[in-house]
């Protein structure tokens, strides 16, 4: 059973197909340069920003966060105008970049933005050899590293994002160390979802080993996160499933809406159709229905969401190739959180009503609750203490407060 939001709240906006890297395993479903389609025909020039304004006006009330990606988003000539307009609309955004911009003026634009959350910079290895084995551009490592340092020096939050390939799968600790040296906020490890390529695609065994190593880094308190999902039935790990088709979608440079950046399914076009109609189209529903039946019987379904549906659909197979057998039911318990009873929770989320309940939103976090939670949420105002909330609402309320705290949705003030 899925609780689908009435509109997406997280968007990946692929601003341009152009890219100055030549990644051998580029996962973009559209050609990166020359805008040449698979059938050899030239794709039309992406619409200019003026045509996007009305679309952004319509998205802004729903959009919790945009991820500006590509291609390389900063290569779009009107990139500064887009940043400026997102500031005007008050929509927060992240820029997913390869960090190979040449103009120092770009950092002025980004540093001046009030809604930029930070940069996700692709860095695929701790040394030039491993990074450039993926990017295909000699010198790209040095260029990206220097720009990370410049961005950090300007006070811009930078996270390093990489895909796990044969070239870096055994060097996760080195990458984290480099990230720390560069002053990056954290490292995001992503599973490689591009075409299967010898020497690039890690084996399931290699990936499982990397997941274990990354988990160990997490437990050491290192600034490490998983991006996309590694199925829990391959190996228990800290990754979580994607929200494509439930709370998240991708929009390509021509306005086509897809469930995610990895999916080639086109559900409609934002420049021509209302968002709601696209979101509840038969194509989007087909994507949601692609969850393998056995995953609905798995105790990890709530965490991994059925693995990568985009990959399975594009390969024409029933399930994520890494998925094995459903896990049996387990009694998951977490260690209790000990807190002083005089602490006062303060909400850090916005509440969005849905037909089936309420959704709490902050950044990338999408947290659904039952409608009965409403009076407890109102009490998270910095006035009521934990003890008072417990006395008034009982243990379920304190359990909810604990979950909100773990997800960064409240602060606890003394």
């Amino acid at each position, binding site marked *: *059973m*899925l*609780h689908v939001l009435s509109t997406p709240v997280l968007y*990946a906006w692929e601003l341009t197909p152009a890219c100055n890297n030549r990644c051998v395993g580029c996962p973009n479903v559209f050609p990166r340069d020359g805008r040449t389609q698979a059938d050899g025909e030239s794709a039309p020039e992406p619409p200019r920003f003026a045509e996007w304004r009305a679309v952004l006006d319509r998205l802004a009330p729903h959009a919790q966060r945009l*991820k500006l990606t590509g291609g390389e988003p900063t290569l779009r000539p009107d990139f500064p105008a887009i940043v400026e307009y997102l500031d005007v609309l008050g929509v927060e955004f*992240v820029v997913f970049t390869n960090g190979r911009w040449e103009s120092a003026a770009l950092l002025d634009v980004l540093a001046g933005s009030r809604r930029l959350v*930070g940069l*996700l910079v692709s860095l695929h290895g701790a040394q030039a050899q491993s990074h450039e084995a993926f990017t295909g551009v000699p010198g790209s490592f040095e260029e990206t590293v220097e720009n990370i340092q410049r961005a950090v020096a300007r006070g811009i*939050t930078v*996270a390093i*994002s*990489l895909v796990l390939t044969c070239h870096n799968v055994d060097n996760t600790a080195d990458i984290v160390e480099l990230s720390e040296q560069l002053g990056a*906020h954290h490292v995001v490890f*992503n599973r490689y979802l591009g075409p299967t390529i010898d020497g690039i695609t890690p084996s399931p065994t290699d990936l499982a080993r990397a997941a274990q190593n990354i988990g160990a880094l997490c437990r050491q308190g290192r600034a490490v996160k998983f*991006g*996309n999902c590694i199925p829990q039935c391959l190996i228990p790990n800290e990754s979580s*499933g*994607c*929200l*494509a088709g439930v*709370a*998240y979608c991708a929009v390509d440079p021509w306005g086509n809406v897809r469930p995610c*950046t990895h999916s080639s399914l086109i559900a409609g076009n934002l420049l021509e159709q209302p968002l709601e109609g696209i979101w509840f189209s038969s194509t989007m529903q087909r994507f949601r229905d692609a969850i393998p039946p056995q995953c*609905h019987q*798995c*105790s*990890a*379904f709530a965490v991994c969401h059925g693995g*990568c549906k985009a990959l399975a659909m594009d390969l024409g197979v029933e399930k994520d190739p890494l998925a094995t057998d459903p896990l049996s*039911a*387990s*009694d998951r318990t*977490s260690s209790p*959180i*000990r*807190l*002083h*009873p005089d*602490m006062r929770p303060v909400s850090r989320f916005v509440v969005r009503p849905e037909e089936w309940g309420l959704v709490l939103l*902050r950044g990338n976090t999408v*947290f*659904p609750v039952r409608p*009965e*939670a409403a*009076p407890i949420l109102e009490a998270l105002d910095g006035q009521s203490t*934990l003890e008072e909330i*417990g006395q*008034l*609402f*009982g243990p379920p*309320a*304190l*359990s909810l407060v*604990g*979950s909100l*705290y773990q997800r*960064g949705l409240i*602060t*606890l003030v*003394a």
Partner: protein
Amino acid sequence: MSQSVAEQRQKAQLPEALELLLFDSQLHALSRVMILLDRQIPLRSLKVDSDIDDSNCACE
């Protein structure tokens, strides 16, 4: 705490689990978070930050 909230508490029959799941197998009970109130714990402000992550699946 306001009286209205207390009144709402009296009216509401709160379920044990107030959280929902976006992907619900109806098989796996939510991992409940338990809070133990303890006056021995230092009284200081706490914040968990989770801002610029990339957990909704995207890579380049």
